[in-house]
């Protein structure tokens, strides 16, 4: 890992200095930007500028930020409808993402996909899948292509705890293990399957990790609110996949600070639960870690200020963007660019 800033002063000072300052600052920047951008998405929703639905991952930023930092440019990521964070973490600009949420021409898919289908092939963001579990086999296929062509990239597939009870989860895990595919499955266990506690509807305590053995995989449960922990785990799994040693299944324990979607006030949560998790807010604990590590407060503030500026700039650009042109309605149903089903 490149680390031009980690001076000798820091070497050995903390148990986690293997990661390096540059990487840490990058993970902090991503977490802050994801947080700010999603908060803005919420504000824009309240102003009726974000239509339809949106699924925020406030509180889960460490996972996306750490994987986004650990992955290499050619790697492919697959995520769910709760995919804003994973999209930003691969380097997609805020105006592209917010623009898509606002269904404007400036958006990633010019408004044709919406918040649940964010895709940016140039960034390796191979789609956000809105049917629970569908993308696990698809990630297997992408990994199979890498294995077949010797492309050397890894496919990383993010999903929630609810996915672990879908048939496609089990089919994909078995398939990936049998074919020894370069794919990393990342379960973001935020304790709730939409509105229902995952524990109420799952036979095992750790919905992903406790099933790993069934597919001959290592049981991995980690603190998903600690970006350093996620980063180290990600690096190990990516290296394993790239080295031809097959898939990994990682269960990241985390918590979403808001409801399942914008329609959900999350009243089902027991009293005090949110407060306990807010104490372990990934952005807050990471900020403190940077201070403990000796990063200057001014440097941290600069990142935070720049993030707010970027969100404001993106918002302005999106507001100025027109809606998608009507010609897009019938475009790209078929590969010739059109929608003709008859000659």
């Amino acid at each position, binding site marked *: 890992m490149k680390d031009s800033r980690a001076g000798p002063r820091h070497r050995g000072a903390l148990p986690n200095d293997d990661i390096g300052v540059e990487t840490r600052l990058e993970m902090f920047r991503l977490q802050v930007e994801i947080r700010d951008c999603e908060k803005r998405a919420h504000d824009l929703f309240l102003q009726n500028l974000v239509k339809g639905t949106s699924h925020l991952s406030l509180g889960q930023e460490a996972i996306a930020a750490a994987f986004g930092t650990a992955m290499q440019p050619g790697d*492919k990521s697959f995520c769910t409808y709760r995919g804003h964070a994973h999209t930003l973490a691969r380097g997609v600009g805020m105006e592209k993402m917010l623009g898509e949420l606002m269904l404007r021409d400036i958006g*990633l*898919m*010019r408004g*044709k*996909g919406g918040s649940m*289908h964010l*895709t*940016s*092939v140039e960034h390796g963001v*191979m*789609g956000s*899948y809105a*049917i629970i579990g*569908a*993308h*696990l*086999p*698809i*990630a*297997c*296929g*992408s*990994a*199979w*292509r*890498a294995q*077949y*062509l010797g*492309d050397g990239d890894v*496919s990383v597939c993010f999903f929630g705890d609810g996915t672990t009870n879908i*048939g*496609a989860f089990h*089919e*994909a895990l*078995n*398939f990936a293990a*049998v*074919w020894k595919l370069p794919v990393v499955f990342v379960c973001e266990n935020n304790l709730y399957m939409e509105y229902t506690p995952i524990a109420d509807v799952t036979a095992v305590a750790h919905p992903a990790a406790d099933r790993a053995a069934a597919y001959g995989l290592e049981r991995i449960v980690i603190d998903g609110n600690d970006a350093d922990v996620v980063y180290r785990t990600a690096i190990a799994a990516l290296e394993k996949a790239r080295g031809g040693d097959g898939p990994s299944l990682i269960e990241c324990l985390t918590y979403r600070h808001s409801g399942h979607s914008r329609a959900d006030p999350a009243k089902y949560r027991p009293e005090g639960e949110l407060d306990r998790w807010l104490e372990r807010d990934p952005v807050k604990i990471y900020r403190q870690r940077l201070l403990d590590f000796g990063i200057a407060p001014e440097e941290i503030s600069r990142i935070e200020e720049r993030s707010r500026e970027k969100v404001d700039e993106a918002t302005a650009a999106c507001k100025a963007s027109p809606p998608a042109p009507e010609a*897009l309605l019938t*475009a*790209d*149903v*078929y*590969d010739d*660019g059109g*929608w*003709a*089903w*008859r*000659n």
Partner: protein
Amino acid sequence: MAELTYREAVARAIAQEMRRDERVVFLGEDVAKAGGVFKATVGLLEEFGPRRVRDTPISEQAILGAAMGAAMTGLRPIAEIMFSDFMAVCFDYVANEFPKTRYMTNGQLSVPLVVRTGNGGGVRFGAQHSQSIENWSMMIPGLKVVAPSSPIDVIGLMAAAVRDNNPVIFHEHKALYAVKGEVPDGEIVDTLGTAKILRAGKDCTIVALAMMVPRALEAANRLSRDHGIDAEVIDVRCLVPLDTQAILGSVVKTGRLFTVEENPRLCGWGAEIVSIVADEVFWDLDGPCVRITTPHIPLPAADHLEDIALPTADRIVERVSRVMNGD
């Protein structure tokens, strides 16, 4: 020129495309070592090896999902779903994933894959292994839907499907696997969305698909011989894109339309063709458009019951002659 069975044509078609393009890979249950439960893929493993011809677990979602993931990142997979009935097990991919990806991503991703599947009845397999499901996928924007009736069409249309940049659902008919036909040597490539007029006629048009094609041809010959009715027979071959030009042209010429469908009556593809004809060439019609279909039932296993359910040449002759004579 060689005489091939429909099942041998499947293997020859896949081999033709795999020889041509290293990106073409093939996966499915029992397709490699066993050569397919219908023996339609015998020899592919031997020629192309386990890297390109792959047995999968019984995991239909994984098969179609993996095919899609590979297709949208650079391969051109052919995936087998053993019996078309099983398409329902993985219908998320057929209905929600393959066909919508290109549109939702504003053209960023294409899904160039072929799902081939054993479709249709007539072989006493009962209600869950006999369905004719081509209309399930016909209604979904973004898919192409093919159903060949002869060995030469299997090769040409399969080649066209593999080379197409869209997801194609390719229905092979189980009851046709043993049918033989002359096939020229060398590479064969057909065009999707082209119907074939297999018998020219002036009195009425009979539109058929897959196993109904030979039955419609037999019926047309008997209609001519026994009833003096000269029927034109069109093999649709491909439901999407649909060759409306050939169908409308024929109906304008004959003034009468009959469709012969194996799928259950409700919302069968024949209804769409009748609707197009009624919309666009109504004033050229000399009488009602008539659909000959399987009744709205699951298919029974009992041989005599299944035979009654599926349109036969007898039924086609009876229905066409009665309608043409104004009864």
